[in-house]
Structure formats: C-alpha cells, structure tokens
C-alpha cells in the first residue's frame, strides 16, 4: 500500500483505502509521542515549510511538532512576516521557496483553492492545512482517527455537525470523509449558515439542532467566527447560543455514549457549555489534538520523498 499522491489537497480526492492507510500509519505514530525521547530520525535532512497566510496557532504548532518528532527541519512563514505585504503573488512566493529545495510545503490560506494553485506550480508535495471555506483534510483525518478509536468504527455511526456549515472547511472535509467511511451525517445551523444545495453532499440538513443530534453517536460542534454577527449571518451571539449551544438539556437527545468533538478553539458558552466541554467522559476535544500530531506525522512520513 502506498499513498500514490504528490499532494494532500482534500479528503474529496482520497479513497477509503487511502484514508484507512493513513489512519493505520498514524496509529503507529501515536506511541512516539509517549516516549521520553519523542523523536525518530525518519525525516532527517528533510525540510518542511509551514506557509501560513492565515493566523493559526494549533494547526501550525501541530504540524511543526509532527515534523520535529520526525527529525525534519521546519521553517514557519506567516503572512505578517512574508512578502505578502509587499505584494508578492503566491506563485512568486512558491517559486522562491521551490528554489530552496524544501521537501514538503504545508499551506494554510484564506482563499479556497490556494493549495491547488500552489500544487500546480511547484514540484514539492503540498499539504493543505486549511483553505478558505473549502477543506481542512488533516483535521478531518484526526477527527476520523478519534472517532475510530472511541467508537471502534465509523461505518454506521450517526454523526451530527452543528453550527456555521457555510463557512466551515472542517465541515466539508468531515462530510466527505465520514460519508465515504459509511457514517450517516446530519447537519444543523441557522438557515443563513447552511450553504446552498449542501444536502447534495449526501447528508440530512436541519435548521433545528435538536433534530440533528437526536440519536447521534458523535456530535461535532463548529466554531462560530464572532465577526459573522456583523455580516448579518445571525442577529446576535446571545440568540445563537440559545438555540445552537450544546448543553446538558439537549445532549440528552443523543445516544447515551455520545462523544462531543470541536476543532477548537472553543468559544465557551457559545457552541458548547463549559460543563460539557470539560466532561472527559463525553468531550474528546483533547484527544483530537493528540491525534492531530500523529496524523500529521503519518502524512509527512508518507509524502516526504519517494512517490512515483
């Protein structure tokens, strides 16, 4: 088995077999992070560039830790320190980076499709670390890994995704991945946060949260970008949290052994009530973070050097 790809741009483009292969590989990487010496020499001499056009602490940190535990050299380039301000185009930046012979470029960008543009222009492997409202494939992989560990499987599970679906790359990547793996997906959010024709992705769509989470094995809460209030996507945070915050009352509608996920960072009391977020019998939010490093190690390992 191999990951026969130069790049990882989205979950849409990868098969169930490839997802399983990545998750199995990631499973073997989990152990390294528990060692006293959390480092293997695998990617010694490889250079990985984290090209972040959008602020991100956890995703960037996770990629950086993953690379370092594999002994790769990492360079972080963030929008504020890069040439973006000077008006350099993405392609110019890419060609300059390419000339320095890195092995993998991890890119986060606010514009959907930016990783595709980059991948079409440079020979290096590109990993999409989130592009606009399009995809966030490593997040979906770590979510799938978490679900698989907690539930033993994905096939047949009922998974509810709640919140701002329209602006969420996490939602899209998870919808692709989880439906491929055989889960039944329901989504709910205010009508203004449900993008047009989303049901054509093979999911059930509700505008009431209660309907979506009834009988759910997994509830995935999405982060609300607070600035959406100003765009009239919803009238107020207060009203949003009254209808779409996961709390002790509505979580009772889900299965007894439901797990609660969130890609982070959480707006406590907006998406999830604090007592649920901190209840480690239900909340697996920190497991997600832990799996994130392993998934990213697996991808760096599988993509670095040597693909046909």
């Amino acid at each position, binding site marked *: 088995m191999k990951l026969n790809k130069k790049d990882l741009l989205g979950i*849409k483009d990868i098969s169930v077999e490839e997802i399983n292969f990545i998750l199995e590989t990631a499973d073997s990487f989990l152990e390294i992070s528990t060692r006293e010496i959390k480092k293997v020499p695998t990617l010694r001499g490889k250079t990985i560039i984290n090209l972040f056009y959008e602020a991100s602490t956890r995703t960037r940190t996770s990629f950086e830790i993953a690379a370092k535990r594999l002994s790769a050299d990492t360079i972080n380039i963030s929008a504020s320190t890069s040439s973006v301000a000077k008006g350099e*185009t*993405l*392609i110019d930046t890419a060609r300059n980076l390419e000339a320095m012979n890195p092995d993998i470029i991890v890119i986060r*960008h606010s*514009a*959907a*499709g*930016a990783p*595709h*543009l980059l991948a079409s222009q440079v020979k290096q492997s590109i990993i999409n670390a989130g*592009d*606009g*409202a*399009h*995809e966030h494939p490593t997040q979906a992989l770590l979510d799938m890994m978490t679900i698989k560990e907690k539930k033993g499987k994905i096939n047949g599970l009922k998974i509810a995704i709640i919140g701002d679906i*329209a602006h969420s*790359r996490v939602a*899209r990547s998870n919808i692709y991945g989880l439906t491929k793996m055989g889960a039944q997906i329901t989504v709910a959010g205010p009508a203004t946060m449900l*993008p*047009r*024709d*989303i049901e*054509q*992705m093979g999911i059930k769509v509700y505008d009431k949260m209660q309907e979506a989470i009834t009988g759910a094995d997994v509830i995935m809460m999405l982060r609300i970008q607070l600035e959406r209030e100003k765009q009239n996507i919803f009238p107020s945070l207060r009203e949003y949290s009254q209808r779409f915050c996961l709390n002790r009352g509505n979580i009772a509608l889900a299965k007894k052994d439901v797990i609660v996920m969130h890609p982070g960072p959480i707006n406590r009391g907006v998406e999830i009530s604090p007592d649920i977020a901190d209840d480690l019998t239900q909340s697996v939010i920190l497991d997600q973070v832990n799996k994130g490093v392993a998934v990213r190690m697996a991808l760096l390992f599988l993509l670095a050097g040597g693909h046909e």
Partner: protein
Amino acid sequence: MKLLLKGARVIDPAQKIDSLTDILIQDGRIADLGKDIIKTDKAKSSTDIKLINLTGMIVTPGLIDMHTHLREPGFEYKETIASGCAAAVAGGFTSIACMPNTDPVNDNRSITEFIRRKAAEANMANVYPIGAISIGSKGSQLTEFWDLKDAGIIALSDDGRPVMDAALMRRALEYAHSLGLPVIQHCEDINLSAGGCMNEGYYSTILGLRGIPSIAEEAIIARDILIAEYTHTSVHIAHVSTAGSLRLIREAKKRNLKITAETAPHYFTLTDELLQGYDTNFKVNPPLRNAQDVAAIREGLMDGTIDAIACDHAPHARTDKEVEFEYAQNGISGLDTSLGLSFTLVNEGVLTLEKLVEKMSTNPARILNLPKGTLAPGSDADITVIDPQLKWTVDVKDFQSRGKNSPFNGRQCLGKAVMTIVGGEIKYAGASLKS
C-alpha cells in the same frame, strides 16, 4: 479594383437571402449581388477584378460583436485597440462595440475621440465606442449623453458594474431614449453578489467559494423591465446567464416591451461544474451557471428570446489570472473563439445558419442602430466568409488578442471564419485563402 466573391452560399437574413450568389464589391460597397453577375472567364481576364472562388464557403454580412472590452486607454498590458481589432477580424468580426470601462472611463468626448482615432490607426475592424451612463461609471451622476453621441458613441452602458440606483436608471433610460441611444445594462445586484466569485449552488458549496446567486442578475432585469415599461423606453440586457432571466425577458417580449438581450458563448457552452480545479480561466461575471441554465440559454437562443450573441471579450494578462481564485479578475478573451463556439449551435441543430447570422450580425446592427448587418447593394462591403467544414483546435498561442485567458484552450471546433472583409478590404484571410 473590384472584388468578385464567387460560388459561396450567401446568407443575409435582412434581405431574406440564402442561396448560391455572387457578390461584386466596388469602392468599399456592395455593388451587385446575383448569380453569375460576371462570368468566371471574363472576371479572370479582367485586370480590375480580383476573383475569389468561395465554393463550399458561407458568406454572411460582416459579424458584429456588440460587447467587447478593448482595455485601451489604461490597460494596454491586457489589450490594445489594435490587438483587439486584429483579434476581431481574425475571429470573423467586421465591427465591434467596446465598453467604456477603461481607465479613464469613456465618459467624455475626449476618450471617445481617442478610441476612434486609435481604431482608425489600427484600420482593421470598425470600432463603435459605448459611452458610460454615469461619470466614472460610479452610478451617481449622468454623463453628457448628447456630447458623447456627437463624439461618436453608439450606446450607453456602465458595463462591469450595474446601475444600482433605480432612479438614476430611470433618468438614463428617459434621457437616452430621447436621443435614440440604446442603453445596455449589466444586470447584477451588487448587494446580493457581494464577495461572490462563482455561481451559487452545489459547486460553490463544495468548493468553498462565495456564490453569486442567480437572483442577483434576475432582480435587476426584473426592475429594469419595469422601468422601461413605465417610461416607454427600451433597454438591452447584457450577458444573460440564467434560466430565470430568460423567463423574465420572454415574458416582457410577449407583452411587446422593447427589451432586447444578448448572451455569450460561454453561457451556452460551459457550466459551473468545470470550476472544480479552481482554473481561473473559468472565472467570469456573470458566473458560469448550472446545466439547467445552459439548457435555458440554448432554448432562449432558439425561440428568439435572446437576440444577439456577444462574447463579452475580456482579455487579461497572466498576472490577472495566475492568482488565488477569489483574487483573479473576471473575464474570458473571446473574439478569437466566439464564432467557432457559436457555430457549434448550428452543428448541433440549436440554430439554423440564418438564425446564427441574425444573432451575430443582423440583430446587433438593429439594436445599436448601425448601418450594418446586410449585404444589400449600396451597403458597406463588410463581409465574413466562413468555412463550415474547417476543423480546428483552439490554441491560445494563436490568439491575435493579447489576452490568452480562455477556458476553451484545446477545444475542437468545426467551422471558422476564413476571410474578413471590412469596407471592401480584405483584413483577414485564413491559410486556405491567403493567396
């Protein structure tokens, strides 16, 4: 020197001609039209007649593209009037109308005169400037329609942007109507389309790109139909792209309102599904719509709801397109491919040849009040010769336009302009007719 076009099938809807007819051209005008007006051997022996054998070819009144962007002044790195005109004649167009969204905007006499002078220097296609409705196309203050008309504009538009202010649109229609100037509206409610960069629907959802809903176009069309009806004026709807727009225009025409409409080849050829690779060559405004819309556009072409095909020629430089999708400029460089793509409608039985010529010559001339679009004796000798059997592949490297931004690169076409005659002069001859 006279020019004798012999043996072609001549199609001129204005005169209801569709027959094998010879055409004699003298002093830049159509001198005569008929079977064997001059015998071949006589023409051959005559020293002041140039005989062109066009057996198997189709001859039409010179094609007119009523919606182009020539980019000069201001954006010469994208296109110049000269390169745009070269693309026009290579694409079979003898006349083009150019939109005012240059820099500066064509909102005053000096810009109009500049465009006309540059076009005369280029000496290829006829160029008809369209003047801005509002100063700087900013949508607040009307331009001097009268003075612009004197300077040579043939229509008004703020194309690239809509006239969002309904009261301004009303005044523009009323004032222009009294001058006999057609008004062309770019229909887009910019509040509904704000931030959008492709058609809103399943594909914008999965691509994570902000969508432009069909209602952004339809809302302004509905509004402008109401204004035209109320003020007893006419309005021309540019680049129609949605099924809903077709419904509105069809209904208005049924009520005998003076509404005319155009569409562009990409709207009857491409769908939003093709944006999946984030190729910015597919980024255009209005955006490529879904398959139902494409079917509706074809139906509108068939039943006459759409009067004209205009390619919305929007040349761009590589740097305008080789960027993230949402930052890329809108537009397709269309003059080099418009006829080939439109001729597909004939090959597919959507349009008869006569209807195609109407939409690419007769009707644009009528809508813009141009003394063009016919081969009647005495009219300007603007003629397009089409080889209906010529198979060719679109290659942007062959474009005469500076804009190589085409989503059609590599597409196979059947049917191409092989000769373009403007005012009796051969401005373009394809390989088969070069000698």
